[in-house]
């Protein structure tokens, strides 16, 4: 691959139009207008956007990324998106009802996450941020397992080794360097570039972060390391246009996918509201990584349709028009229209999935309401692998202190007030 085309996948090298469509930002300092256009081309995401399903639900082809996808897979991805959205909405209402301390909504980002998540193989590893409920779903983590973090009973209950998904990371960008290290380990253990006949012979890592995160040193350092070690890591940036109140142009003056060129690996912008494109591009990128070609950056161009979290007030910084425009590009709606129009599914299927979603929501809610409080000794457990005498002494003293309240007729569970 020649350097001029590093912002594109290798198969597009022979495509004549590559340079015509490349934004001016790559060659000379862009004008303010070009910056805004490139960063926030809110209708299409720019000329380089990979799309396979239009907002109107029309299947379109792409010279580099077309995929064969069975009707069964299409139905499954529709189901994935509907179910995870429903769980997400239930998370929001549980927070409003005081059952959760906070909820981080995924609304609008279902296609980006399900596409990427379904491209991962069981032996791959995912390093998430904190909004990756759809990725978790694809890794076999039941949505109820997310609840502890937001209800405040744990910091994540799933086993990263068993599920192939790290715990949620709250400090922005931290996970990108960890993902690179993990991917280096996959490579050092000989798990890249092996015969394609055994699909389990190769592994890759995918890490998820936001557009705001790209300003952090850790994300930059992760990309530097990944490139110099050819680590099999895919950087999956969900550009949902906002970092709390700050728009993408507060973080960058070039479209984010173009930054990959500076690190020496391909960067691709995909329509993050198009589950087919997200799947296709992610598959391609993971295959690049698995085959030993090194890292890829994917910018999933999408939109955060809800507030940043349930503690945020998006009306202070965001125009309603913008939200309305993006609603027309709803990731679930466009797949539904396509599936119905092509008679891949009938209304019965749509209703069935909706019923299943309601059942999930009920189960999710009941689980939340029935969660037990962690016992006080949980505070001291597993601080170290080797038990610390200091922590053990503090635990014993604290439990002893609590039992004093029990003698005085107080409640030993939780509150000592």
């Amino acid at each position, binding site marked *: 691959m020649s350097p001029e085309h590093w912002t594109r996948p290798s198969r597009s090298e022979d495509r004549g139009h590559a340079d015509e469509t490349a934004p001016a930002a790559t060659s000379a300092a862009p004008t303010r207008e070009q910056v805004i256009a490139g960063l926030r081309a809110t209708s299409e995401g720019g000329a380089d956007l990979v799309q396979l399903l239009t907002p109107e639900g029309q299947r379109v082809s792409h010279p580099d990324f077309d995929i064969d996808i069975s009707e069964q897979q299409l139905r499954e991805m529709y189901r994935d998106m509907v179910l995870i959205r429903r769980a997400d909405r239930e998370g929001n209402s549980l927070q409003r009802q005081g059952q959760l301390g906070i909820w981080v909504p995924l609304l609008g980002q279902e296609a980006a996450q399900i596409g990427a998540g379904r491209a991962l193989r069981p032996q791959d590893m995912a390093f998430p941020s904190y909004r990756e409920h759809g990725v978790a779903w694809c890794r076999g983590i039941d949505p109820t397992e997310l609840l502890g973090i937001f209800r405040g009973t744990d910091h994540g209950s799933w086993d990263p080794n068993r599920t192939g998904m790290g715990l949620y990371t709250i400090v922005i960008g931290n996970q990108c360097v960890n993902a690179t290290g993990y991917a280096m380990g996959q490579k050092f253990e000989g798990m890249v570039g092996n015969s394609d006949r055994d699909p389990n012979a190769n592994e890759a890592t995918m890490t998820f972060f936001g557009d705001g995160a790209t300003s*952090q040193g850790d994300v930059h350092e992760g990309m530097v390391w990944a490139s110099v070690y050819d680590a099999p890591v895919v950087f999956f940036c969900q550009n949902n246009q906002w970092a709390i109140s700050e728009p993408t142009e507060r973080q960058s003056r070039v479209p984010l996918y173009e930054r990959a060129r500076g690190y020496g690996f391909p960067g691709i912008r995909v329509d993050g509201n198009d589950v087919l494109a997200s799947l296709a591009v992610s598959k391609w990128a993971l295959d690049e990584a698995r085959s030993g070609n090194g890292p890829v950056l994917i910018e999933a161009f999408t939109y955060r349709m809800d507030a940043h979290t349930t503690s945020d007030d998006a009306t*202070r910084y965001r125009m309603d028009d913008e939200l309305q425009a993006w609603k027309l590009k709803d990731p679930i709606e466009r797949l539904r229209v396509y599936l119905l129009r092509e008679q891949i599914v009938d209304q019965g299927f749509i209703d069935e999935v909706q019923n299943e979603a309601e059942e999930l929501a009920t189960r999710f809610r009941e689980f939340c309401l029935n969660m037990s409080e*962690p016992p006080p000794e949980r505070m001291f457990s597993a601080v170290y692998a080797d038990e610390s005498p200091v922590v053990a002494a503090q635990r014993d003293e604290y439990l002893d202190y609590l039992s004093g309240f029990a003698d005085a007729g107080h409640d030993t569970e*939780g509150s000592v007030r």
Partner: protein
Amino acid sequence: MAAPTVETTGSGTTQPQTITMAKGLNMAMRATMERDPKVLVMGEDVGKLGGVFRVTDGLQKDFGEHRVLDTPLSESGIIGAAIGLAMRGFRPVCEIQFDGFIFPGFDQIVSQLSKMHFRSQGKVKAPVVIRVPFGGGIGAVEHHSESPESLFAHIAGLKVMSCSNPVDAYWMLQQAIDSDDPVLFFEPKRRYWEKAELDPTAEHLSMGSSALLRRGSSATLATYGPMVKTCLDAANAATEDGNELEVVDLRSLSPLDLGPVAESVRRTGRLIVVSESPPESSVTSEVAARIQQECFYSLEAPVMRVNGFDTPYPPSKLEEGYLPDLDRVLDAVDRSLAY
């Protein structure tokens, strides 16, 4: 460092008014920005949103985007750039969104900010203020409730402050901004909405002094930040058992003004040091060690400490047990009195 004069506080009034701590901090920034065009406010979401706690609310609207900067999402960038701006004569006031997010900027604070003056032997000053909402008690997820102040108190060249009430918030932050030294300014986030009367014409203490808040004869409580209110409440409750507790608000964690604590201990003979942070190698260790040394013959009991634990901050359902509360403070008082 000149104490700010009352006439220039700008924010409308010299009349007494009831304010929250968040408002006091906001008024402090506004006042310094009005009298010194070199004062900048910078951080994530501090502009249009007014900060996630709304402490910078309205400042960008009134002072513009070049005085109140919504920065890229990078703490090393915020602090590193603030150092450069300070070298150019500006006085940046940086907001770190939550305690747990200061660490991407830790290197800049420790390697550059704290050493600039010493390394250049005074030729370069770094008047940077870093505001950090800190501590627990708000039911948040990981990294939003930590008390990392001891890490900074350990670094030579930094001043470390913590306010505990709206009036101090108003004065101490102005003094911090006026100081030519770098200041780490810890704000007890769970006290942001607590109110007090501010009389802008009343006298105020220097930010480097600790303050005796309550007199008593039984024992001394020394504390700071969010635990000041807890200790005052404990002192009120202690009267039911016939105990009169003195309460000292340390205010300045580095340098420590231990004079008022020592005087108090000489009166009461007993000291309990209280903070939310893990106890090992902390501000409370420092106070205990020095008072033990200075007041050995006045002490009737070993200095007690009430802290969080030497564990990572727990999930929020457990934080009530982690955070010292009135009962844990009184328990330590009882143990001290039992000697």
